[in-house]
């Protein structure tokens, strides 16, 4: 085989991506499973869409292996009114759970950033629960470009 530098590079990137996304071949979570988890987290309440919760994601993630996400909830964060927890779900991952952030009044602001893995193009859902029992939800679609070589 006589590969050019460019072909070689493409092949190796493709192979690396295949390894990274190997788990995308296994059974993936369904939006129903995510809805079930949200119901359990919200304690039977219907989460209010949008509201004080903002989930920030890139529109297109070139590399599904590190997708930066940010959640922030507008809250006074006082002892009797603060955001207790924010949970993140990825509807199309093999396991929809991503992370649960727990805040306290000492957090000052209910904001957190991290980097997550996405197996394919899908919705990312964030649900927040306050100490007063309010539940907010936000949903964003992230397009994931799997594999290198513009595929």
């Amino acid at each position: 085989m006589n590969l050019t530098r460019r072909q070689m590079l493409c092949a190796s990137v493709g192979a690396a991506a295949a390894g990274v996304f190997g788990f995308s071949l296994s059974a993936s979570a369904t939006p129903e499973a995510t809805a079930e988890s949200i119901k359990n987290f919200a304690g039977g309440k219907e989460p209010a869409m949008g509201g004080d919760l903002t989930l920030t994601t890139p529109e297109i993630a070139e590399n599904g292996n590190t997708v930066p996400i940010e959640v922030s909830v507008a809250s006074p964060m006082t002892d009797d009114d603060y955001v207790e927890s924010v949970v993140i779900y990825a509807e199309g991952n093999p396991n929809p759970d991503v992370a649960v952030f727990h805040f306290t009044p000492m957090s000052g602001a209910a904001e957190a950033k991290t980097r997550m893995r996405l197996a394919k193009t899908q919705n990312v859902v964030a649900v927040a629960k306050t100490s007063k029992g309010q539940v907010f939800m936000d949903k964003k679609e992230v397009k994931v470009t799997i594999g290198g070589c513009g595929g």
Partner: protein
Amino acid sequence: MDNIKPRVKVPKSASAGEIITIKTLINHPMESGLRKGKDGNLIPRQIINKFTCEFNGKPVFSCELEPAISANPYIEFSAKVNEAGTFKFSWLDDDGSVYETENKIAIK
């Protein structure tokens, strides 16, 4: 595991009542348990499953991580500083190890 080094960025000082941003990073493969090795067998899961931050012994922020968090987990959050003291950070590994680090902060 060896060679795990947590890194944390906390301002050296803050004014009383100020909300500061804390950035943390730890090098860890976050092996999801869904990936296959060269021999075709699944590589066992090994991730950081919990991160906590305390200030003078009181909880400030914590988070539970799942395999869907990227390798070398990066977490950024905020904290309200009312007094001088010490932030204590800990990461819990699936294998039972705990990686810890501390940072002091002064009041301007």
